[in-house]
C-alpha cells in the first residue's frame, strides 16, 4: 500500500475564525472549504508544503480541542519566520537551539493546538 500523504484534521469550535487565524497570522492560504458557500464546516489550509485541515466540532459530548502531539513545520529560514510570527501569536517556547542542534520555536494556535517550527535540514 502506497501512502501519498498524511495531513492532520483537527476539530475546532470555530472553523471560520481558525481559517482567518492561519491566513492572517501564519501566512497560510485557504486551500479548500466545505460547503462551497455559507458557513464553513471544514477548511483546508496550506502554506508551501505544510497543510492542515479543520473540521467543526460536533456539539456536546466531545472534549475541547486537545492533542498530545504537534505539527512540526520545517522552515527554510526559521529565524526570519520567528521574527515574522513572534508578535502575532501566542508563543509557547521562544526561538532556541534544541539538544540535536536544530533552531526551533513553538507556538499555540487560536484553539490551543501546538505548532513547532524548526530549521529545515
Amino acid at each position, binding site marked *: *500500500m502506497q501512502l501519498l500523504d*498524511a495531513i492532520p484534521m483537527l476539530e475546532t469550535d470555530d472553523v471560520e475564525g481558525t481559517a482567518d487565524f492561519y491566513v492572517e497570522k501564519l501566512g497560510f492560504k485557504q486551500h479548500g472549504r*466545505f460547503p462551497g458557500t455559507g458557513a464553513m464546516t471544514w477548511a483546508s489550509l496550506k502554506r508551501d508544503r505544510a497543510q492542515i485541515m479543520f473540521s467543526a466540532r460536533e456539539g456536546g459530548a466531545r472534549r475541547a480541542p*486537545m492533542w498530545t502531539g504537534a505539527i512540526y513545520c520545517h522552515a527554510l529560514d526559521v529565524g526570519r519566520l520567528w521574527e515574522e510570527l513572534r508578535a502575532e501569536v501566542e508563543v509557547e517556547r521562544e526561538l532556541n537551539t534544541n539538544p540535536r542542534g536544530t533552531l526551533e520555536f513553538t507556538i499555540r494556535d487560536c484553539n490551543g493546538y501546538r505548532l513547532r517550527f524548526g530549521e529545515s535540514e
Partner: protein
Amino acid sequence: MTLARMDLVLEVREIDASIEYYTRTLGFELTGRAGTEGEQRLDRGLGADDWAHVEAGATSLVFVPLEGGAENSVPVMTGSIYLYPEDVDKAWDELHEHVEVTWPIRTWPYGMREFGVRDVNGYWLVFGQAVDDLSPRVGTLSLPRLVDRAKTGDEVRKPPGCGAGRGRSVCRPCRWAWSFAFPMALRRRKPLPVANVSTAPTPGTSSRIRCVRRCWSGTVTPSGTCCAGCLPSASTRGRASICTTVAFPGSRSRA
C-alpha cells in the same frame, strides 16, 4: 519563508510498539530512530530524547514519549490524521482484518471515499481518497470497475451475506447498484417527502392527495384527508410519513 516540509509529532505510550504497528501493519517505513547505530539498537535510557520517525509519502510521523509519562497521561487528539493511500479500496482490502476499524469504507456525499481506524495508541486515522466517480457500488467496487472486472473475467465480490443473484433478498448497496444497471428490473423507490397530517389540504380546496407505497394507484378523498392506507399509525409515530400531498390549483377533487 518557505515551509519545506511538515511532520506530525505524536506522543505515544511506547515508541517500539508504535513503530511495530505503523511499519508492520500500516506499511510505513522507519526512517529514523534515536539510539540506533546502523541496524543495531543501542541499549541505553533515552528518556525524553527518545524518538522515532516513520514516513508516509510527503509527511513523516514522529513518535515521542508522552510528556507526562505513560503512567500519568494518555494520548488524545480531538481530530484525526488523514492518510491518502494511492488506492483506498486496496488499502481497505489489505488492512481491515488487521486493524481496529472505527468505520468501514464508504463514499461520503462530499466526494471522499474513506474508512476509519484507531491506531495502537488510540489516535484516529482516516484513510481517504477523493472520488470523482460517485456512482453506485457493489461492496467496495464502483459499477464501472465492476463492469471492468466482469469483462476481464475476475471474480466479482459481493458484500458478505449478500444473496444477490441467488433468489434471495438483495442487500442495499447491491440493490442500489442493480437499480442503476437494470432500472426496469429493479425499480427503486425514491425516498418520499415526509408529510405531516396537519399539512393535508383543508376540505373543499382543490387539492389532490397522492397516496403512495400502500396504495400505489393514488387515492383522492373528497374531504382532503389521507386515505385509510396513508393514515398515520403508531408505527409512523403519528405522522403520515407515507403520504405526500400535491396541490394542483384549479383541479377538481374527486371521490
